[in-house]
Every structure is written in C-alpha cells, then in structure tokens.
C-alpha cells in the first residue's frame, strides 16, 4: 500500500447490486414463508412498532433490504424486536410479521 496521505478514501458504493448479492437465503425464506413476499410497504408495522417507538428500528425497511439480499445488520436490527405483535394486528396483508422477524433471525444469524 502506498504511503501517500490522500486525506480521503474511495467511497464504497451505496448501490445494491442484485447480481453480486447472495439471494440464496432470501429465496429460501420466501419458499418457507411465501407471505413474506406479499408486503406492500405501507409501513404500518413500523409506525406502530413498540421497539421502533424507542429506537431507530424500522422493520419495513430492514426486511425490504433483506429481500434485496442486503443482509448486513439485519439480524442485529431484528434483535431489537420485542415480538409484541402489534405489527401483525395492523398489517393490511395479514402477514405473520413476527414469523418474518424470527425467520430473518434464524436465516441470517451468520451475516
């Protein structure tokens, strides 16, 4: 490596590259729980979220990222969930949101 003090470094790309991302785990998740794919991103879950009321936890955003193969941090985020179940009560698509939380935690513990 060079000894040059550049004062900056090459910024990592923010782009989600679906070709490079490993979509295997998310495919498995969808197979196990097809309703995971039925989200219409209304955000009701996040609005009512007990944990989201206290932290930056955004269930809608995190699971959308997971859908795109962006797993980093998903497990840690999902760990903030208290499983209280309010999100499921407001979900207009009737998704077992708590099941989604546990599925993500189970499948992505390694990421």
């Amino acid at each position: 490596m060079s000894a040059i003090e550049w004062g900056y470094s090459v910024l990592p790309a923010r782009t989600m590259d679906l070709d490079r991302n490993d979509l295997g785990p998310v495919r498995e998740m969808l197979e196990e729980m097809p309703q995971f794919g039925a989200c219409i991103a209304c955000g009701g879950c996040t609005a009512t979220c007990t944990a989201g009321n206290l932290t930056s936890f955004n269930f809608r955003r995190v699971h959308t990222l997971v859908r795109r193969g962006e797993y980093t941090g998903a497990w840690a985020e999902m760990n903030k969930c208290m499983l209280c179940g309010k999100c499921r009560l407001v979900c207009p698509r009737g998704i077992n949101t708590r099941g989604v939380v546990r599925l993500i935690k189970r499948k992505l513990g390694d990421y």
Partner: protein
Amino acid sequence: MVQTFYSGFVIPFIVGTSVLFAVIIYKYVRWMVRLPRRDKLKVWHGLFSVATLKGIWECFTECLLHRRIWRVNPLLGYMHTAFALGWFLLIVVGWVETIAYLGLRFVPLQGHIFFDYFTQDMDHGPRWGINFEVVMDVLLLYVLSGLVLAVFKRFRSRAMGMKRTTKLTLGDRVAMTSLWFVFPMRLLAESFPSQLPLWWGYSIALGVFFVAMPFSRYMHIFTEVPLIFLRRWGITSEAGREKSFDHFQLEACSRCGICIDPCQLQRDAGMRNVQSAYFIRDRRYNRLTRYVADNCLLCGRCQVKCPVGLELDTLRLGSRHSLSGTPSNGRFNYACDVDRSRGEGRVGYFAGCMTLLSPKILRSMERIFTAAGEQVWWADRDGGVCCGRPLKLSGDIEAARDMMRINAELFRNHGITTLVTSCPICLRVFREDYNLDGIEVLHHSEYFVRLLSDGRLTLKPGGTEKMTYHDPCELGRGCGIYDAPREVLQTVGTLVEPAETRDEALCCGSSLANMAVENSSQVAIAQAVGRAFEATGAGEIVTACPLCKKAIARGTSLPVMDLAEVIEQHLA
C-alpha cells in the same frame, strides 16, 4: 409340565417380557439420574410423605379406573377401564388362581400367564369356594368388550364421540395389532388348551406387544405411574428449558387423541398435525419441527381435557426454547432507561402493547379512574417496553427476562403498591414471572370488582340487553379469573353464556403464542367463535382482553367490547 413350566411356545413371551423390563428399567433409571439436584431432593422429601399415599390413590383412580377419561367421554372411559382394570385383575386373579391350585410355591412368570396350558391335567373345579374359571372368563370378556370398542374406535371414531383420533406410528401399529390379538388368542388358547399352535399364537402376540410397547404409545401404561408420584412430589416441567422430567410426561401420553377435538386449529382451521398428541409424539421421537412447535395457540383447551394431566403448554414452550431460543446478549439494553410514564399515584396502570392499539379501552380506563377518584400513574401511556410474555411464548426466555427486569424496575422506581392492567397477557406474566414483591397485581376486572364493593364506583343498572362474555385464555385458564368480569357485567346487564365457557371457553384464534398461524386460519377461528357467540342470542360480546376484542371482531357482526368500555357506558 407343572414341574418345569416350560414349553417351546413360551420363548416369545419370555423374550418379550425381558426386553420390556430391560428397556423400561433403562429408561426410568436414566431419566431419574438425570433429574436436576433440586428435583432429586424433592423426591427424597416427598417419598415418605402423604403425597405418596395420595399418589397411590391416584394411580388406582387414574391408571386403572381412568376417572378423568370417564368425565370427558364415558364410552372412551369404559374402553380404557376395560383394558386397564380388566387386564390388571386378570393378572391379580391369575396369581391368586395359581396359589389356589398350586399352593404357595415358586411359579415362574410363564406359569402364571399360561396357567391353563401347564395345568391341563389338573382338575379346574372351584377352589376356596370360587369358580376361578368363570371369574377369569368374565374378566377376559370384560377386556374383550373394551377391545371391541377399541377396534370400533379406530375405524369409526365419530361414533365414539371423537371427531378425530390420532394417527399412528409404526411402533404403534405393531403394538396395537399384537395387542388386538392378545386377548382373542388367549380366549382361544384357554378354550382349547391342548392346541399348541393357539398357545404359540398367544405367546407371540404377547411377545411382540411387549417388545413394541416401550417404543410405542403403550409406554404410557407403565409411565403414568412414576409420573403420578413425581408430580405428587412437586416436580414440574419448565417453560424455559427441556428437562429430564419431561420424558416421563412425553412417554405417559397415550396419544388417546382427546386433545385433538378441542383444538380450534383442527376444527376450524383444518390443521391435522400440530395438536398436543402429535407434538408430544414428534418430540418423543426426536422429529419435532419448528412448524409443529410454533403452531399452537397455547390456549390451554387441550390441557384442561388431558386425562393424564400433562403440562402440554409448558412442554411446548420448553421445545420452543430449545429450537428457537437465542441468548439475550443484552439486546434490549436500549430500553433500560426508557421511562415514558405519566402522572403520579400509588396505583399504576399498565396498558400494554395491545391496549395501546385500542384507544377506546384506554379512554374508558381513564374515565373510570377519574370517576373512582383514583390517582393513577400511567406506566406506558406514550409507549413503553413490552411486558415480555410474547417473547417468552416464542421461546426466547432469557431475553424476555431482561424485558421483565426493565419493567419491574420501572414499577418499583415509581413506588406503586397496586398495578392494574387491562391486558391478560401482561397480567399473566406479571404474576408468573415478575418479581413484584410489595406490588399487588390486578386485572382490571378484579380492580373493578373492588371499586364496586368499596362503593367507589356506582353503575347505572343496564336495560334488558343481553350480553355474552368471552373468557380470554390468558385470563381464564391462564390466571383462573372467571368470576370477576362476570360479577361486574351482571350489575349492568343480563349475561348469557355460550355453549363452551369458563375453562372450556374458546380461544379468539389470534393468540400471540402461535408463531406460525396464517391470517386465513385466524379469521376462520374468529368466525367460528363469532358464530358460537351469535348462537347465544346476545346483542353484544364482552371480553376482557384487547387482543381478543380485535380478534373476535374480525369474525362477527356483533359489537365486541372490552369490559372497561361497558363499565364506562354505565358510569353513574
């Protein structure tokens, strides 16, 4: 023959019996050794106590008479009693018979069992004034009458008052088939004692049954006995982990299938493989899936009916912990200093997540507190930390305990002496898992009863409007609170009960305990519950749980209200 008590045909019987006792002893010793120290101490303390005597009596009433099954289903009760008591008496009377004819001398096991073969040459006339032949034949007929019912049940369970009966494993099939042959073969062999092939048949049936027995559901015949004593001595299963004691519970399950019919997932949502009998079977044979472990409302309806009194919900929670529990890792540290409480008072009110989604209940509680002149500390009016029960129900018990500590600390910091909650889910966890010494925990129904009896609240008597009451699982079967809400409701209206009520009450179907159920099944159950309430002719459904309220409302056109709302409407 009497001298040797040996013939070739006894070999299957001897082998079977040896295997049976070897396996049973191996299992029991292993399980006992692995009991935690605390449980072992309980055994020593209980052994020479009145609990043991009570256990003996229970063994008689339950293992032989099957009193609890009789209560649920008399036909089924008769079947079980016929098998258990009949066979037991056959053995006891058989021994007496041996003594009566051969005197007090050593007779090997096969001598008792195949008595008629070995004593073919003897005179079988009455001894001691008892016609043993007739007695034994009557007993055998009694058992056979049970057998007829058993066969009938296998093919026509509905006629036995059981809509569904359990599906069998291979071990079950082998054991059951051989068992079905045991008594008819005995009848034939004893009727024609000189026919050796019949004795061979009888011996083989017994041998096969005994070998298959410890690996089949018939293991329950023996295991129920140690279970009864261990339970009497105070040993229980735990929600937070799987224990050695669990094995006694698992193998004491006869898979009688009584748990299947009450299961609403079965009768309203068409699920056929998740009921307690199947859960226990799967766990016993190490093939439990997350789906089965998670797919239970933990409503407790089957547990109430279980003739063996198994801790079905606790066993399932233990499995969930093993399958899905993760270390806490301080994951809720972010909530440690959260205090969004409001107000001041010795009485604290904890709405809980579900009530926070039900503003009508909140408003009613507020008005009732005002009417009663109560100074209230609102623990979570602007959101707070969940009570922890949902997480516990998912199997994540360590993390749930962190949440419980956070809330308990919050309660103590504000110096309350009474904690009222309108949510039975929170109530149950406050009572069962929280350490809230010095704080009395009340469900709002209990609190209302107290306000009324203290004269702090007066209600306008209601009209003639009939209302019906739904027992929330966590409140009724969970905390044993059935009367408080009814007492309150009776002061303002006419209460009509649905067909299944109190400890048999239906579950709303949206229980937080079910981690796997799909929306369509929840709706199907809610609709069935709705129909049950509509059949009462009541004009409104009252419940005492915010979640039940929301869940039932999805399945009926009748108004569904929380107890607090009803009271608020009738405030004088």
